[in-house]
């Protein structure tokens, strides 16, 4: 049960990915944690290797020349940034599990292995795999085949084992909600969804990776940052929601107001933008791994470390979901503004919802059951 909780989001996205793979024009929500092999039983957390315990991942260093300022004096984060990488959120098991940072040679090997695993242009998996991979590399972000420049084996930098911490026992209500969601997923994955409500928020184009924490996905990994005096605004290419972050000291929304993207407030610590986000809605799938909106906390830190690199780091905690807080770091790379960021009209042409549902109704008439 706990293992399924731990891997929940990856399972949903992976399964729904497989459904989507067939639909060339449908856009796909896949978070790269889907690549991470299942955790060893979370009840017995994997022990960090000696090497990993000794040397924590190096802290990001900010080169003095990187501290660009806006005319009104804030650190300047404006630009279009990309967060694609093949480095998995969680450190894979196996021989690599004892290393947090790889040598150049090991890194080359790790990258080649991941690129091979992720490639959708391979034709060595049989007919079923071929059909799934018809949604091929043409549609994917090529940057997602490279590991992070710091050669880490996981995006998670804390805990030192590079894995999401074990979960705590959940309340009966939350267990029930998760079971209901799992049943809906099972219907969807069997090609027999009862209604659009059996589909996840990303499939329904309500939210995708436009909601924090930002994790790399198969495409649309661009984020354009806008700034004005008192505000930082992040416009992700994945759906068009602009995340407006006041940095002017105004208070959070009243606790009565909840939003899909939560309510963000930022402040500057040196050259780092620190963002706290609260007031998330409690709908299934809004918060990472369906943590508890009443106790979930997320802090994101954006630091421009040089002209072309922004370090994105987030720490999440929820004592009613995980045994301890955890932190991941993803370097964002500045892209040439001439590389167009396109409008992402997800809901407007979401033909596949109808395809899935009308297909299910036909199968029911034929007497098919899951």
């Amino acid at each position, binding site marked *: 049960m706990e293992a399924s909780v731990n891997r929940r989001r990856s399972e949903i996205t992976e399964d729904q990915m497989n459904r989507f793979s067939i639909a060339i024009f449908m856009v796909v929500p896949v978070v790269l944690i889907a690549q991470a092999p299942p955790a060893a039983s979370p009840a017995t957390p994997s022990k960090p290797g000696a090497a990993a315990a000794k040397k924590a991942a190096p802290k990001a260093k900010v080169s003095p020349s990187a501290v660009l300022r*806006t*005319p*009104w004096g804030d650190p*300047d984060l*404006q*630009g279009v940034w990309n967060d694609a990488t093949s480095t998995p959120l969680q450190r894979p098991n196996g021989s690599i599990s004892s290393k947090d940072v790889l040598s150049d040679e090991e890194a080359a090997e790790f990258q080649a292995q991941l690129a091979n695993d992720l490639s959708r242009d391979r034709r060595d998996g049989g007919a079923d795999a071929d059909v799934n991979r018809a949604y091929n590399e043409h549609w994917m972000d090529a940057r997602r085949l490279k590991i992070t420049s710091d050669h880490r084996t996981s995006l998670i930098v804390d805990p030192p084992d590079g894995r999401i911490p074990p979960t705590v026992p959940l309340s009966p209500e939350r267990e029930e909600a998760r079971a209901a969601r799992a049943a809906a997923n099972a219907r969807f994955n069997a090609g027999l969804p*009862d*209604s*659009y*409500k059996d589909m996840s928020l990303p499939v*329904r*184009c*309500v*939210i995708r990776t436009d909601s924090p924490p930002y994790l790399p996905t198969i495409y649309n990994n661009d984020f*354009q940052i*806008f*700034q*004005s*005096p*008192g*505000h930082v*605004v992040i*416009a992700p290419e994945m*759906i*068009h*929601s*602009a995340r*407006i972050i*006041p940095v002017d000291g*105004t*208070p959070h*929304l009243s606790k009565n*107001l909840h*939003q*899909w*993207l939560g309510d963000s407030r930022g402040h500057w610590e040196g050259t780092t933008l620190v963002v706290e986000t609260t007031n998330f809605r409690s709908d299934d799938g809004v918060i990472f791994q369906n943590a508890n909106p009443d106790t979930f906390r997320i802090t994101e830190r954006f630091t421009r470390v040089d002209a072309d690199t922004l370090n994105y780091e987030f720490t999440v905690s929820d004592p009613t979901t995980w045994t301890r807080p955890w932190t991941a770091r993803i370097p964002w790379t500045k892209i040439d503004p001439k590389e*167009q*960021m*396109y*409008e992402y*009209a997800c*809901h*407007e*042409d979401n*033909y596949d*919802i*109808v395809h899935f*549902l*009308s297909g*299910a*109704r036909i199968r*029911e008439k034929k007497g098919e059951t899951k």
Partner: protein
Amino acid sequence: MRKCAVVASVAYAILVAGASSSDGQSFPTYRPPHMADGHPDLNGIWQAMVTANWDLQDHEAQARPHPEIMGEYGAGPAGQSIVEGGEIPYLPSALQKKKQNFEKRATVDVSSDKRWHELGDPELKCYMPGVPRATYMPFPFRIVQGSSPYILIAYEYASATRTIRMNTKQEAPTPSWMGWSRGHWEGDTLVVDVTGFREETWLDRAGDYHSEGLHVVERYTPASPYHLMYEATVEDPQVYSRPWKISFPLYRRMEKNVQLLEFKCASFAEELLYGGFSKQAAK
């Protein structure tokens, strides 16, 4: 105390000097504060007060579709045309489509990919509103103007956004719902040239529409610390006999701590769009 009185009387004098004798007059000359780059600062949350989203042209208060369910909730307010000259100059052949649009404005049929967009007001389905409709939807929007060559407009409705690219000649790479916006300054006016539209957006709930050849030129001019004058010239030779113009003020939202909230309406349109394909409904 005395200082306050002086300030108050000066303010009153300005008010009297600036105010016109009747409602809805033009603003007195205004010189807005400028940002470091020398251009006016348009940052803030703005909202139109016109009822053009119901109908750009003159419209009486009226019940809308399904009054038997909606009662007064479904009724729309009366409003005066914001179109210069009052009427949109449709080509005779195009007027018929507008009328059909209106008749089918609350009808939706997504059973066919090819006919997906044929029926119903896109607003009913929570599709991105396009330009200029986004400006006069009954929702606020935020202009984000910094020191980069991009200005963002974030609309509360449908979480739609558009990026205005300043001083570029680049053409639209592909059609989009919110169009391809290129901006430049003419004095204190931000002029935005918008092309590259998808043809599916409508201009209001009355069925006013355009083709993919739509070309909109917008002008945002600071009229006071609390107002922007908005003008848009709309051109589309496939649908209209000549370019036409709308104009109205945008008001700065002044409530304490006001911010854009979410109106992610996709979730509100799902039952209408997809409910008929669910298990119970199909039986």
